[in-house]
Each structure stands twice: as structure tokens, then as C-alpha cells.
């Protein structure tokens, strides 16, 4: 390849911007307003009685609306997790960090959350954790009102207790 050829521009990276309005919907709005009050609100399916946190307004298993509101505590169990060691421009935190499936006490579906205040090598399936909130004056209608989860001094939950929620 000649020098001129090697300098040919073969691709360029261009910025791309998309502005959109996000409509949270009834269930998410309730959840997000709960976050602003420091509360975790879920919804119970009237058919299978499973509790969805965060609520989606429906149970995809039963195909019915979920309109029974329940409050759950900020404590729960890590059902499974990974240690992220690969960086990405669109991540909100630098690796290494632990992204875990957390099943809150009283909830029947896990969600992804960040684990902090312990070394990533100490994180285990079944580990008991609690939500760490932002300061009261910083609470807002966002899931980010919970900064992360941290271990609590309780024995690990047995595998049988969360095996349906990995």
C-alpha cells in the first residue's frame, strides 16, 4: 500500500443527537413519585399475586393490569450478578463494579442495581443488601434516588428462597 493510499479516509465518526419526550405512564409515575418520597412502591398482580418492583402496570405472565399498590422495604437479596470490567462510554460508572439482580423483600421479580461499599470479590449469590439513598434534600422522582445497594450484616439467603428469581 502506498503512503497516499494509507492516508485515505475510510470512515469518520460523527455525533448523533436525538431529543425525545419520555412519558413514564401511570405505574412508573407512581413509582417515580414514591422515589421522591423515599418509598419503594410496587404493584401486585390481581391474578397470580406476584409483586412487581418497579411496577409496569401489567403482569406479562397473566396479561392483566396490576393496580394494587404495595410498599416494599429497601432490603433484599442478590440473586445473581456479574463483575463488569470492560469500560463503555455509555456506562454511568467506571469498572470494575458489580451489577446485580436484586430481589427486594416482598417483591417477586429482581431488577439490576449497583453494589458498593464492599470489594467486588466479596459479592455472593444470596448476599443480603440494603438500599443507600441520596440525602433527603436530593430526593427526586427518579430510580437514581437510590444511589446503590450495600451488604448488611445478615446470613446469606438460602438458594431455595430465590431460585425462581435469578
Amino acid at each position, binding site marked *: 500500500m502506498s503512503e497516499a493510499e494509507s492516508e485515505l479516509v475510510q470512515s469518520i465518526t460523527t455525533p448523533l443527537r436525538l431529543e425525545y419526550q419520555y412519558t413514564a405512564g401511570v405505574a412508573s409515575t407512581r413509582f417515580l413519585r414514591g422515589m421522591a418520597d423515599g418509598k419503594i412502591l410496587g404493584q401486585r398482580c390481581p391474578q397470580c399475586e406476584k409483586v412487581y418492583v418497579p411496577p409496569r402496570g401489567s403482569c406479562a405472565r397473566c396479561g392483566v393490569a396490576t393496580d394494587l399498590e404495595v410498599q416494599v422495604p429497601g432490603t433484599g437479596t442478590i440473586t445473581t450478578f456479574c463483575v*463488569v470490567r470492560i469500560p463503555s*462510554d*455509555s456506562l454511568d460508572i467506571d469498572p470494575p463494579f458489580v451489577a446485580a439482580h436484586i430481589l427486594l423483600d416482598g417483591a417477586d421479580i429482581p431488577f439490576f442495581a449497583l453494589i458498593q461499599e464492599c470489594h467486588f470479590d466479596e459479592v455472593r449469590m444470596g448476599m443480603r443488601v440494603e438500599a443507600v439513598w441520596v440525602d433527603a434534600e436530593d430526593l427526586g422522582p427518579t430510580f*437514581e434516588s437510590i444511589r446503590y445497594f450495600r451488604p448488611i450484616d445478615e446470613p446469606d439467603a438460602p438458594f431455595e428462597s430465590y431460585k425462581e*428469581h435469578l
Partner: protein
Amino acid sequence: MAELCGVVGIGQTQHDAKRTDVSAPGLLREAATRALEDAQLTWSDIDAVVIGKAPDMFEGVMMPEIAMGDALGAAGKPILRVHTAGSVGGSTAVVAASLIQAGIHDRVLTVAYEKQSESNAMWALTIKIPFQQAIVAGAGGYFAPLIRAYMARSKAPEDTGIRVALKDRLNALKNPYAHLKIPGVDFDQVANSPMLWDPIRYLETCPSSDGACAMVLSSEKAAESAPTRPAWVWSTAMKSEPTMFSGRDQVNPQAGKDCAAELYKKAGITNPRKEIDAAEIYVPFSWFEPMWMENLGFAEEGLGWEMTYEGATALDGDLPVNCSGGVLSSNPIGASGMLRFAEAAMQVRGQAGEHQVEGARKALGHAYGGGSQFFAMWIVGSEKP
């Protein structure tokens, strides 16, 4: 009774990290031209084009198929795009086959591609959901916890994933089109490669590839003039399930089990492990081989790892899996599913060269996508059903 459908032409590109020598339409044309040459047909013989690729967010080009009509010889012909995330290459072939089976067309060109060098899949898959922290790092970030869950449930030996990766990487050395080839690769090299999304190591992960795949599908009548033996479609199936519902088993999803059951029933297969001679399964991270062996009914739940461990899935095993090197060796996302379907067809046509399973008469092609929620499969055979 549906019409019979045969695969009469197969083409794929040289898969590589950056195919800067061709544009995206050029990449597709490379695969399509090879498929037409294989079938000894020309563009004018084609009745319709069915195309698939991963979501438009990857390359940032909306509905690229519209601008590609000319490059695909589709001017004045029906062109149809299929969207099912990572499983799309498989679903696209299933949709194309349905147009033959329904008696609508005699010859359909089906193509799938991805030009990952013009995109940023890690960015596109690290989704920033409003009002939430972005912590799910790409596809690996999503699937790694499921792999950890499988490891805990099955109590599989910790090196199972390393063994799968080593097998597929050695198979890739026999495939002239494979992207990632590591001559001399051994167990220690895979084991010592860095953790990206613990428990997934670098060499247990698929690469980012530019590549395309194409097939010419034909009715029974039009296949009479085919220069070489077609691969006959015995059955196809597609199933999906929601991403989130309470109690969802993401390790062994119901949609995958249902899809496989329907597939075998339609093909008259009662003992898949015995009756299928080769399988090309969508394994983007090594541990998905044992997971899908169970989901596809080749092994009892919790015992899929034994097949890998005993060498059953090796090129000389009783159910060779991913003889081409699989997704672990070439991953042009949109095309990755169609490559599985095409490689299955190559096996029953005796076209697979150095990675040919001797005497393969029935083969399975499999693709999955989204959050392990979209499934597409087919069984092809050397004989007519």
C-alpha cells in the same frame, strides 16, 4: 399441505473486524453473488428479497434496506425486512422459507448482515433508560448474571466454558470464512484471558465482525434445475416471550423449549440427540452451549455441560455443535443467526469442507435474541421430507 422448500444456493463473506474495502451494500452483494453463483442463477431469476439485520441503532442508519434495493437486485420486486434483534438472521430465513412454502414465490433471495465497524454495539446495547443508572454493560453485562445462575443451578465444572471456547476456536481454524482465528490456541490461553464480565472471559466472548450471509431458497419445482443437491427444509419454528415477568426462567426460557418442541414435532423427530447429525447453535458466550443443549432437549436440565465435557459436541462427537467455529469466531450480529442456518444447510449438502461432519443427513440451525426471548430454528435434511 405446504410446498417443499429447498436451499439451492449459499454464500457468505469473508468475516473480519473491519471490511473497509466494501460498503454495507457491497458486503451484502458479496454474499448474495456467491449464493447466486452456487445456485447457478442470476439476479433476474429471483422473485423477492427478504433481508434482516440488527436494530438500526447499531449503524445509526434508519431502514437501510430501502437504499439497498438496487444493490440487491430488488428493483421492481418485493423486499421485506425482518426485525427480531439478535435472532434476526434465523427469523429472516424462516420468513423467506414461508414465502416458498406458501406457494407465493418460486425463488427467494434471503440476506442478512452487520457492519459492526460502522457501529458501536457496546454503546447501542448499554441502554440508558430514563430515570435509571446505566450499569448493564452491553450484551455481556446482561448475559453474565444468567451464566452465573446456570453455573449455580447445574453445578457444572468451572472450566466448562473454557472447553467450549477452545473447541469453537479450534473449529474456526478449519473454516476459511471465520473472522477470529488463533493458531495454536490452547486451554491455558483461554483460561488466562482477562475477565470482561466476570464470569465471562475475553476468549469466551464473540468478536465484533463485519459480514453477511445469503441463501437462495427454491420451490420443489424450481429446484429441479439446481446444479447441486439442495438442503430440504424439514421444519421451521419461531417463538418469543416477554422480557420481564415474575418467575421467568431466563436460563432455560420457555419460549426456547416450546420452539424446539414444535420444530421436532413438525419434522417428525422424537429423539433429537440421535436423529440430528450436526447443530449450529447461537452461542455468543461459551457457556450458552450447555445452556442451549438443555433448552433444545439434547440433554436433561442441569446436564448440558456433560455433553461438552465428554466431547459429544466436538467435530467427532455424537452431536457436533458449531463446527464452523460459531458466533464465538464470527459475529456480524444480524447475519450471525443466518450463518447458523446456512452452515446447517452446508452440512447436509456436504459443502462444509474441512469442518464437514461426515455423512450429515439432518442438521439444526438455531438463533436467539433480545433478553433470551426470541427464538428461531430450522431443520434441514439431505433428503426430501
